[in-house]
C-alpha cells in the first residue's frame, strides 16, 4: 500500500491538487525568484552559498556578479516598483561555463510568447545567479513519464537526475544504475541543508541510504504534507438538527441519520472506492477503533503486522456497511475515485467529509457562492475505548537520483542549488520578495505574473511558478524541510494580526484580498491538523518494498479493496472478512509480512 500512496502523492500533490485548488502555500518551488543581480551581501544567518564555495573546483569564479545592465533577469525583476525595502541575498557565484542538466519535464503549459522551459525569468535567474541551465529532453507526465524514464534507462541514456521511489528505486540501486553520491554530498551539502533535511537520521533518508552509502537526495515531506485528513462538517446542518458537535462514532452515526431524515442532504458522509485514502476518506472511523488499513504497525510481540487483517477492521466495516444500508453513503460511491466524489460535496449531497487541509479551498468556494452554507472542522470521532486516529502521511517519500557516471561537477552544482534555495526557504522572511515565489506559489513577479489592482491582486495569464518548478526534479519537497510548511504558515498567520502600517508591500500580498483570506482558512486547517499529530497513525514500515514484495503487492491490494467494498455494499456477508484474512495470508501476505519484519529487525538492532 505504501507504494500506492507514494505514487499518488507524486502524481497529484503538487501539480493537480495545488494547481486546481489555486493554492500556493504547499506548492513550492524550486526556482526561486531572486530579485537580484544587484550587488549582494552575504546574509548574516546560515548562508548556504558559503558552504559549497570552499568545495567548488578551482575553475570557478569567486562570487562574481552578473553584469546588471545586460541581464534579462534584472530587466524583469525590476518590474517591481512597489517593493518598499531592499532585501539582502545570499552570495552566489555562477558556474562558468554553466552546468547544463539534461532533464525531462512534465509539459502541458502555455508559455508567454517566445518563452519556454529554458527561456523564462526563472531560467534566466538560475543561469545568471547559479550558472545552471536546463536542457529539456522530453515532456511527459504521470505514468507516461515513468515509462519514458524507463525507456531512456533501457536505452542507456537516462536523464542527469530524476525522481524515483518504491520498487523502482530499489531496483535502480540494486542494479547500480544510479550514482553513489556519498562523498560529494558529505562535502558539498551545507550544514543547514543537512540539519533541516534531518540527514542522516530522518525517516525520509531510509529509501536513499544503503549500507551507509547515499544514493540520492531524499524528499522531505512534512507532517500533514498532503494526505492527512480532517473532518469538515456542515455547521449549518448541525444547527438545523439542533445537535452538538459529535464526539464518538455513534454520535457521528446519529448525526448523519438526522441530516438525512430531515432532508438536509441526500447521503450524509462522503466516501470513494478507496475507503482509506487521501481525500473523501473514512480513515478516522478506522482510527477510532485503533486500526488503519494499509499500514504496518507494531504488534505487542514486537513484530510489524498488517493492520488490514486485524479483527477491529471487521467491526469498522460493519459500521460502514450499516451506513451504506441506511443510505448514509452514496449508493454509487464505489464507482467514484477521490476526485469524482468531490461532486457530492459541491452539490450539497453530504454533510461530512474527511479530507486534507487543501480541501478547504473548495469549501471556501462553496461558502462564497452561498452564504447559507457554513462549514467547520469537527474533531476525530472516538471509538468505544476512547481511541482516535487518522492515517498519517509520514515523511518517507521519493528520492532524487543521479544517473550512473554523471560528472561529479553536476552533482555538486545540483547541491549548490539546493544549498542556495534551502537558505531562501529557511530564512525566507528576509528574502520575502522572492520568497513570495515559494510561499504563494502562483505569482511572484509583479507585472509579469500578477498586477496590483487597487489593494487586490490580479493574476496575469502567464504560466505559474509550477511550470518551472515541478518537473525538473527540483521539486518542493526536495528543496525543503519537513517543518517548512508549518513555519511558513505560522509566520503568515501572524501577519494577519499585524496593523496595516507594519506590513510592507510584499507582506500585504499575503494578507489582502479574498484570496488571502481563503488562504488563511486553509492555513488554519493545516495548523489544526498539525496540532493533532498525537492522533496520527504512522506506517512503521518505512523502507521501499523489496522486489519480492512488489510482486505480490498489486494482487494483495486488489484483494483487499475488492473484499472491503463488497462487504460494505452487501455483495458479501460481513463474515467473509475472516476468509479474506486467510486468503490474504495464503496468496502472499506471509511473504510480505516476512519481508517487512526482516527489514524491521535490521533497523531495530
Amino acid at each position: 500500500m505504501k507504494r500506492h500512496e507514494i505514487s499518488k502523492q507524486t502524481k497529484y500533490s503538487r501539480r493537480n491538487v495545488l494547481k486546481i485548488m489555486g493554492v500556493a502555500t504547499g506548492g513550492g518551488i524550486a526556482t526561486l525568484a531572486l530579485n537580484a543581480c544587484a550587488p549582494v551581501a552575504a546574509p548574516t544567518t546560515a548562508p548556504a552559498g558559503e558552504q559549497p564555495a570552499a568545495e567548488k573546483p578551482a575553475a570557478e569564479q569567486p562570487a562574481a556578479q552578473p553584469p546588471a545592465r545586460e541581464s534579462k533577469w534584472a530587466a524583469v525583476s525590476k518590474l517591481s516598483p512597489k517593493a518598499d525595502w531592499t532585501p539582502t541575498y545570499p552570495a552566489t557565484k555562477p558556474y562558468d561555463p554553466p552546468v547544463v542538466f539534461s532533464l525531462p519535464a512534465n509539459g502541458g503549459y502555455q508559455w508567454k510568447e517566445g518563452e519556454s522551459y529554458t527561456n523564462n525569468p526563472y531560467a534566466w535567474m538560475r543561469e545568471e545567479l547559479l550558472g545552471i541551465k536546463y536542457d529539456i529532453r522530453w515532456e511527459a507526465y504521470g505514468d507516461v513519464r515513468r515509462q519514458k524514464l524507463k525507456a531512456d534507462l533501457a536505452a542507456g541514456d537516462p536523464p542527469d537526475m530524476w525522481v524515483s521511489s518504491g520498487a523502482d528505486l530499489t531496483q535502480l540501486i540494486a542494479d547500480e544504475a544510479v550514482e553513489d553520491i556519498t562523498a560529494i554530498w558529505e562535502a558539498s551539502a551545507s550544514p543547514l541543508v543537512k540539519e533541516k533535511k534531518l540527514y542522516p537520521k530522518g525517516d525520509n533518508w531510509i529509501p536513499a541510504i544503503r549500507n551507509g552509502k547515499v544514493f540520492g537526495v531524499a524528499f522531505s515531506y512534512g507532517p500533514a504534507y498532503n494526505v492527512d485528513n480532517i473532518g469538515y462538517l456542515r455547521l449549518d446542518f448541525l444547527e438545523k438538527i439542533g445537535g452538538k458537535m459529535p464526539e464518538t462514532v455513534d454520535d457521528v452515526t446519529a448525526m448523519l441519520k438526522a441530516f438525512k431524515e430531515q432532508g438536509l442532504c441526500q447521503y450524509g458522509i462522503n466516501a470513494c472506492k478507496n475507503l482509506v485514502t487521501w481525500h473523501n476518506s473514512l480513515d478516522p472511523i478506522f482510527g477510532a477503533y485503533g486500526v488503519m488499513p494499509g499500514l504496518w504497525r507494531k504488534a505487542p510481540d514486537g513484530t510489524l503486522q498488517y493492520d488490514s487483517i486485524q479483527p477491529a477492521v471487521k467491526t469498522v466495516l460493519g459500521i460502514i456497511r450499516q451506513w451504506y444500508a441506511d443510505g448514509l453513503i452514496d449508493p454509487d460511491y464505489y464507482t467514484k475515485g477521490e476526485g469524482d466524489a468531490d461532486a457530492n460535496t459541491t452539490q450539497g449531497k453530504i454533510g461530512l467529509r474527511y479530507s486534507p487541509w487543501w480541501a478547504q479551498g473548495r469549501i471556501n468556494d462553496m461558502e462564497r457562492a452561498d452564504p447559507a452554507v457554513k462549514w467547520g472542522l469537527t474533531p476525530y470521532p472516538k471509538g468505544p475505548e476512547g481511541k482516535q486516529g487518522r492515517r498519517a502521511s509520514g515523511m518517507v517519500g521519493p528520492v532524487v537520483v543521479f544517473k550512473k557516471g554523471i560528472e561529479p561537477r553536476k552533482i555538486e552544482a545540483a547541491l549548490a542549488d539546493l544549498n542556495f534555495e534551502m537558505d531562501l526557504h529557511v530564512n525566507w522572511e528576509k528574502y520575502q520578495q522572492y520568497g513570495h515565489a515559494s510561499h504563494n506559489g502562483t505569482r511572484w513577479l509583479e507585472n509579469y505574473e500578477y498586477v496590483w489592482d487597487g489593494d487586490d491582486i490580479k493574476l496575469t495569464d502567464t504560466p505559474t511558478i509550477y511550470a518551472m518548478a515541478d518537473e525538473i526534479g527540483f521539486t518542493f519537497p526536495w528543496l525543503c524541510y519537513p517543518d517548512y510548511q508549518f513555519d511558513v504558515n505560522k509566520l503568515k498567520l501572524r501577519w494577519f494580526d499585524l496593523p496595516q502600517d507594519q506590513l510592507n508591500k510584499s507582506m500585504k500580498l499575503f494578507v489582502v484580498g479574498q484570496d488571502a483570506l481563503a488562504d488563511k482558512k486553509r492555513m488554519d486547517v493545516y495548523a489544526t491538523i498539525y496540532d493533532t499529530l498525537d492522533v496520527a497513525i504512522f506506517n512503521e514500515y518505512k523502507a521501499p518494498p523489496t522486489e519480492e514484495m512488489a510482486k505480490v503487492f498489486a494482487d494483495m491490494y486488489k484483494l483487499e479493496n475488492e473484499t472491503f467494498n463488497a462487504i460494505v455494499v452487501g455483495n458479501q456477508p460481513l463474515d467473509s472478512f475472516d476468509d479474506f484474512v486467510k486468503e490474504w495470508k495464503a496468496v502472499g501476505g506471509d511473504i510480505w509480512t516476512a519481508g517487512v519484519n526482516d527489514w524491521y529487525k535490521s533497523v531495530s538492532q
Partner: protein
Amino acid sequence: MIQSPPSPLVGPTAVRARAGAEAKPSLSKTLRQHWLLYVMLIPAMVLLILFSFYPLIGIVIAFQDFRPSRGLAGSEFVGLKNFVEIFTMREAWPLFRNTLVIAVGKIVIGTLASLTFALMVHEVASRIFKRVVQTMTTLPHFLSWVIIGGVMVQVLASAGPLNNIIVSIFGGPPIRFLGDPSIFQWTVILSDTWKGFGFGAVIYLAALTGINPELYEAAAVDGANRWARLRHITLPGISSIVILLACLNLGNVLNAGFEQILVLANPLVYSTGDIIDTWVYRRGLLQSEYSLSTALGLVRSVIGFVLILLSYYLAGRFANYRIF
C-alpha cells in the same frame, strides 16, 4: 471492403485469386511490368518493418528478467520462468475466463445487433429517416470510452435514468449494473454493443445495397411477401459477408476491450471484470513487471495468431476470401 464473387462489388484480390490458378509469370517479368506498384509499396513496407517487425525483438523480454537499467542486452535470461508463473498464478483462470466471456459476448451480440439493425434500416423507405438514424447510431463509435464511460457511470447509477425506468416498471431495489459481479459482464457487453452496432451495420448495409434490385422485383411479381423476400433474397445475398466477418472476428476473441474495462471497472467487480489487458496494465506498467506482462502478452498474441490463421482458412472456405 472485400466481397465475395456473387456480389457486384467484386474485390480485386478475389479476382486475382482465381487468376492465380493460371500459369504464373516469372518474378522478373512481374517486377518489370508492375515496378511502379512496387515502388508505391515501399513506404508502407518501411512503416510495417519499423513499427510492426522491428519491435518484435522485444519478445525476448518475455524470456528474461528484464531490468530497464540493464537493458535488453544486459538482462538475465530465465527461460520459461515467466510463463510458468503466469499459468500457476491464482488469477490466471479468472483472467482468461473473463476475457473470453466478454470478448465472445461482444462478438456474438454485437454481430447480431448490427445485422438486425442493418436489415431494419434496409427496409425503411424514407431516405431522410434512414440517414438520420444511421448518423445517430454511428456517432457513438467515434467517441472514446473515456467520454462514454463517464456518461455510462451516470446513466447506470442507482438513481440514474436507466434504474429509474426499471424501478418504476418492475419495482424493487435499483440494479447495480457496475457493482454486481454477476451483472457487470453484461453491462460491458451491452454497452459495447450500443456503442458499436451502428458502425458495424455499415458493412452489412453496403452488402445489402449490392443485391440486385431486379431479384426483389421478380420476387414481388411472383407474390413473395416481405418476409419471404427477406428470407430468400436478402439473407442469402449477404450471407457470405456475414460469414466472412464472423470468421475475421475470431482473431478478436482475446480482445475484451481494455479502455472500456478500465473506465467502467471498480473494486466490486474485479472478480468478473478483470481481463488480460487490465492485468498487463496493472502489473506491467504500474508495477513495472515488464517480463511477466510481456510473457502474458505473447501468450495472447500466439493464441490470437492461431485464431487468425484459422479464421483465414474458414473465410477462404466459406466466403471464398483470400489474400494470398
